[in-house]
């Protein structure tokens, strides 16, 4: 009897992925791309992000389950620009050419993005990135989301032509909503134009460009290396000279170093989310900006 139940249970377990086949399974590396893919795919797709919310995607260590997720996926959306390099080994292990580089289900979301802070192979001093292909945090400019969703739309229509019209409509609706929101965010941040800010990590050039903010320094000079005293002294000096009142920190970044710098220069710490889900109330792409703009404006208003 027990054996029969076990047999039925196993059959059910095996059949489950079959039910999920109704929806197109999409894997993204980050939660931001998951949110944007959902915005385009709507009801027709089931999206999982490999990196959980609130984890540093640059230092993610893949798990065995991730290979399984890739094997089941029909579409893969990645950040590119050396941001999610660990994915390449994972793809080789999954051995699925359809979603591999050059395959129909492979989307590098950095396609057609105007990349900032490209420095060839050499990394400029104090820039805080080990990336030769430019700063990879391009999703933090809402305008870029139009390009990213366009790329995703094209890929989805390619692997699922039947849903093309619905994807098109979803994306148009999303872009319209985003444009309205962007005008609202820009208006909210307009009074703080050229406001000098210091951040822990250089995640914000695209955000700064769109909202006309001035990130004058970064606490972390190289990922994973603690800052040297003369660098910190230089930052504090710049902050005093430029009147920096805000130090931006992401939730996964060390609080102590940020607090140290902020205390020395009499600035306040603002925790911003660089990814969807990194903070409460940042559940999707649009609320991510809502929360960040809100946090920045309320901190900047206290002068």
């Amino acid at each position, binding site marked *: 009897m027990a054996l029969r139940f076990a047999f039925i249970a196993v059959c059910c377990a095996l059949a489950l992925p079959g039910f999920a086949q109704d929806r197109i399974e999409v894997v993204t590396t980050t939660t931001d791309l998951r949110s944007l893919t959902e915005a385009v795919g709507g009801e027709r797709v089931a999206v999982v992000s490999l990196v959980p*919310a609130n984890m540093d995607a640059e230092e993610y260590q893949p798990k065995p389950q991730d290979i399984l997720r890739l094997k089941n996926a029909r579409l893969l959306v990645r950040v590119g620009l050396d941001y999610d390099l660990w994915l390449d080994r994972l793809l080789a292990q999954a051995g699925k050419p359809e979603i591999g580089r050059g395959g129909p289900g492979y989307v590098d979301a950095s396609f057609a993005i105007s990349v900032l802070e490209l420095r060839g192979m050499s990394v400029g001093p104090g820039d805080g990135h080990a990336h030769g292909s430019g700063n990879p945090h391009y999703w933090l400019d809402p305008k870029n989301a139009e390009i990213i969703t366009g790329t995703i739309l094209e890929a989805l229509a390619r692997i699922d032509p039947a849903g093309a019209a619905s994807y098109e409509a979803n994306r148009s609706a999303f872009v319209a909503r985003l444009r309205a929101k962007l005008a609202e965010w820009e208006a909210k941040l307009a009074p703080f134009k050229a406001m000098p800010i210091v951040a822990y990590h250089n995640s914000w050039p695209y955000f700064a460009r769109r909202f006309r903010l001035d990130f004058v320094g970064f606490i972390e000079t190289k990922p994973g290396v603690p800052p040297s005293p003369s660098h910190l002294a230089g930052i504090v000096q710049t902050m005093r000279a430029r009147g920096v009142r805000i130090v931006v920190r992401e939730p996964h*970044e060390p609080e102590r170093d940020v607090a140290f710098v902020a205390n020395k220069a009499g600035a306040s710490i603002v925790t911003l989310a660089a990814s969807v889900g990194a903070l409460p109330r940042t559940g999707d792409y649009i609320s991510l900006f809502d929360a960040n703009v809100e946090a920045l404006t309320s901190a900047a208003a206290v002068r």
Partner: protein
Amino acid sequence: MIEPIVFLWPAFLVAVCLVGIHAYFGIQVLARKVIFVDLALAQIAALGATVAFMLGHPAQSPATYGYSLAFTLLAAVLLAFTRAWATRVPQEALIGVIYVVAAAAAILLIDRAPQGAEHLKQILTGNILTSGLHDVAVIVPLYAVIGVLHWLLRRKLTGTGPLVWEFVFYATFGVVVTSSVAIAGVLLVFSFLIIPAAIGIMFASSLARQLAIGWMIGTLTSAAGLAASFIFDLPTGAAMVCAFGAAMAVAGLLYPLLRGNRRSALRVAVASARWGAAAVLAGTALQLAVAPRADQPLIDIIEYALPSLRALYFTRTEETTFVDASEYAERYRIDAERLNDLEKRRRTEGETLDDFSVGRISSFLKSYGEMRKGEQFVMGEVRARARERMRWGTSVGLLTLALLIAPVPWRRLWWAGASR
């Protein structure tokens, strides 16, 4: 201008406090031969904090400290017993096992929690640079209590008494290590613990003198490490650890001079220095002869210090090509930086650059990067060819130099050969 002293003195004060208690514990730890016990205890405390974090307690809450302390005390019980178990297996092996299992268990736990990895990292990698007076206010009373306790119990805590005293030792040590690792990080705390104590033991036999030497060396080395980290723009913890390593090396070199037969020690030192220099020269000669295109560390260092030396083996055309290429590479770098600066300024000044202009800038930047790499390739190629040309002559020269420097008794060998 912020004076370096103003910036560094809180860190220095913290370092002095940490050296104060750790030099003492280091002497005890060295006597018990449980060198890595601090790593095991710190890791166990981190495991406790991770469990607390998993149960929903915020990072610096009393509950988290409670869990850390409870885990540390449990580990102290375990460690006290390991001495009794360690009849056939050395105690260090068991300490190592405690360390790796605690570390692995913590990884398994934090895998379930987002942001957990960062949390664990913060427990185990303090940054002494960003510590301050609030840390001193916590550790000074704590270390004073523990120091007084050890002073009162000094007869009992020699490490051969009953298990309960062994437990007291590990428990107090665990409390100290847990607090210090959160402030200064695992690497630096290990240095504080072992190196001043080891130097003290080298040069003195009574506990008081060992402590005095350890405190002095620890304080001076901390100051030197902090200063070096400021002057040379280095991460503070790592610079201090290397300063402690250098102090250990200097002490090791001085020991035979101060404690042994001074003349024979000097003779051995000179001979080994000559052997070392000869080996480096011979190795360079061999590397140059076998693989002239590969890295030549010694030649590269000398050329870096004295670029004019290249004139010795470059032809005039090679020299001009090399200088041209390096000037162009630098120009491309400066041009690229200028473009990056322009883009950054336009984020806040004047009209924003449209996407098309930004795209154009980034394609320019890409080309500059490629062109710069091309020039660097030219430089490497010119140098490799010149080195290929000069390899035999220079190799023979270097080998001769190596033979001359090596302390081989040439004259005696010569006479022995002649008289045969």
